[in-house]
């Protein structure tokens, strides 16, 4: 049991059905992710990587096949049980940050903990701790529309870390950010990964994918390549 994978996907397919049309978004995919990996899932738009991200993130259920997330089978769960899984095991980072507008960064970071029943004092302390970790110790009282895009994404990372999730799931985390700030985000990801956290990142930019240790490329719902042969692009001496 020592090497129980964090993500275990076996023969998984996702088929969208309408009255006249069947669209196969994922076609018989199998792979595993171990604890402490930094995986980039790559592919052009329409390749099925967003669908895969939704399934990994327990936002959607597979049509066929099994998905075991950190020892828990995600099949046959109700909406509320899925919500609970997402709350405890997944740290989401979205392309468009998805922070609540007009409230402070601290309150945004506190949000997942509030659904887990953490006390207010503990929530606030944890939120401040993680905001400092991503280098936003001086932006605690700012509302989210008073800070830059890169800073907003760092708030989102802090928010994703608070519940000590099994995986950090990032969907195009640098899609809306200038390249200099994108480097900062990647540096944070590498730092988090160095501390033993599992990171799964969906991206269509090969350049960004190079920051991961392992790259899975999918096309037309199938895995094309899955390798760790590239040289990981490590960002050093980044002040965060």
């Amino acid at each position, binding site marked *: 049991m020592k090497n129980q994978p964090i993500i275990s996907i076996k023969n998984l397919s996702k088929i969208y059905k309408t009255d006249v049309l069947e669209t196969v978004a994922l076609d018989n995919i199998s792979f595993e992710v171990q604890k402490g990996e930094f995986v980039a899932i790559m592919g052009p738009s329409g390749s099925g990587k967003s669908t895969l991200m*939704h399934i990994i*993130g327990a*936002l*959607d259920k597979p049509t066929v096949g099994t998905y075991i997330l950190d020892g828990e089978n995600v099949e046959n769960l109700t*909406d*509320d049980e899925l*919500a*609970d899984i*997402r*709350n*405890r095991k997944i740290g*989401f980072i*979205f392309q468009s940050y*998805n922070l*609540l507008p*007009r*409230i402070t960064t601290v309150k945004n970071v506190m*949000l*997942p903990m*509030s*659904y*887990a*029943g953490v006390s*207010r004092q503990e929530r606030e302390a944890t939120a401040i701790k993680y905001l400092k970790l991503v280098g936003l110790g001086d932006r605690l009282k700012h509302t989210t529309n008073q800070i830059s895009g890169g800073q907003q994404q760092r708030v989102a990372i802090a*928010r994703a870390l608070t*519940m000590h999730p099994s995986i950090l799931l990032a969907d195009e985390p640098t899609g809306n950010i200038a390249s200099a700030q994108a480097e900062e985000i990647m540096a944070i990801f590498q730092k988090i990964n160095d501390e033993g956290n599992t990171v799964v990142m969906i991206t269509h930019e090969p350049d960004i994918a190079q920051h991961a240790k392992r790259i899975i490329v999918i096309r037309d719902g199938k895995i094309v390549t899955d390798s760790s042969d590239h040289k990981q692009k490590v960002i050093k001496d980044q002040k965060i």
Partner: protein
Amino acid sequence: MKLIEVILESFTTLTLNKTRTALSVLGIVIGIGSVIALMSLGQATQQSIQNQIQSLGSNLLTIQPGSSQSSGGVRSAQGSRTTLTLEDAKAIAASTDITTINKVSPEYSSRTQIITSQSNSNTSVIGVTPDYADVHKVSISDGVFVTQSDVDSLKKVAIIGPTVVTNLFPDGSNPIGQTIKIKNQNLTVIGVTVAKGGSGFNNQDDIVYVPLTTAQKQLFGVSYLSSIALEAKSTDQMTEAQNEVGYFLLARHKITDASKADFSIMSQQDMVNTLNSVTGTFTTLLAGVAAISLIVGGIGIMNIMLVTVTERTREIGLRKALGAKKKNITTQFLIESVILTFTGGILGIVFGILTSFIIAKATSSLFVVSLNSVLLAFIVSAAIGILFGWYPAKKAANLQPIEALRYE
């Protein structure tokens, strides 16, 4: 997350869009406010009528000619029949069978024109005996009331109410000793009554009292009475007295079937009850109309909440992605709508009380606000929040997180 935190968060959310919040609250304010105002107005009317009737004497029975129930055919207006006579009144007073009656006051009343050298007025003229003053609690502020010798000798004297004084003697001269003309007869004013209040159809101060015999024979030329007022010995004996007198008069009028009686006996309590049911119906009707505006306000809240849910689709998706259960989302939106209606309810209560206070001041009538109507308004406003917030909240809770996150 604790309920109090959700409430605080909802307050913050609602203050972000102040104009919209204020406008949707306004609907509830007007609804609750008009319910409160109209209900207190109705209650004040009821209270003032009740007070007025009670001031006429609470142990008063009134016998009127004509049946109390219509027994088919056309029923003539009460008082237009001629079945009650002074002899009836004397017999009631003299009877040894009747033990519950203290005083008997035979009366004949009619409206007519009163003329003085200065002015004239259309006023109620009542022919009375001395007992009238005791039975109807009439006090004299100046001069004297009708005496038995006035009645016996058909004396042409009159006692007038304060409203009549101001109408007939606008120059403020002392009315005592002056002459007034009723039906071409000259009567001397010998007394003025103390003001009793009342207004409109039931103004107790706009009355001219004359001796009963004078009214019957000299002024109006009739031999019957328009009513006999009886004072029961105590308020506990009202029903007993009503029965005693009823059977006595039936026997006297040789009527065997009580349903064909040619008179009716009403107690003051009967009148209070009748008027209460009338004003009660009226109040309910008004409150019903106001309740419609409350429903319209509720629909306004529902509309705003639906807009809010659509606007905040992404937020809902995010919250669900981060672990919010259906219950969390439902609670959040329900609390927002309840806060809206509850705030509206509180403001509405203040607004309603203020309105009825201003109306009471302006019309110098009673100001009554019952705790019941305030409590009801509280409960109703919260209930409207839940009722009309339920659908939007459910709609929000059932959004799929993926769809909601994609929503632009």
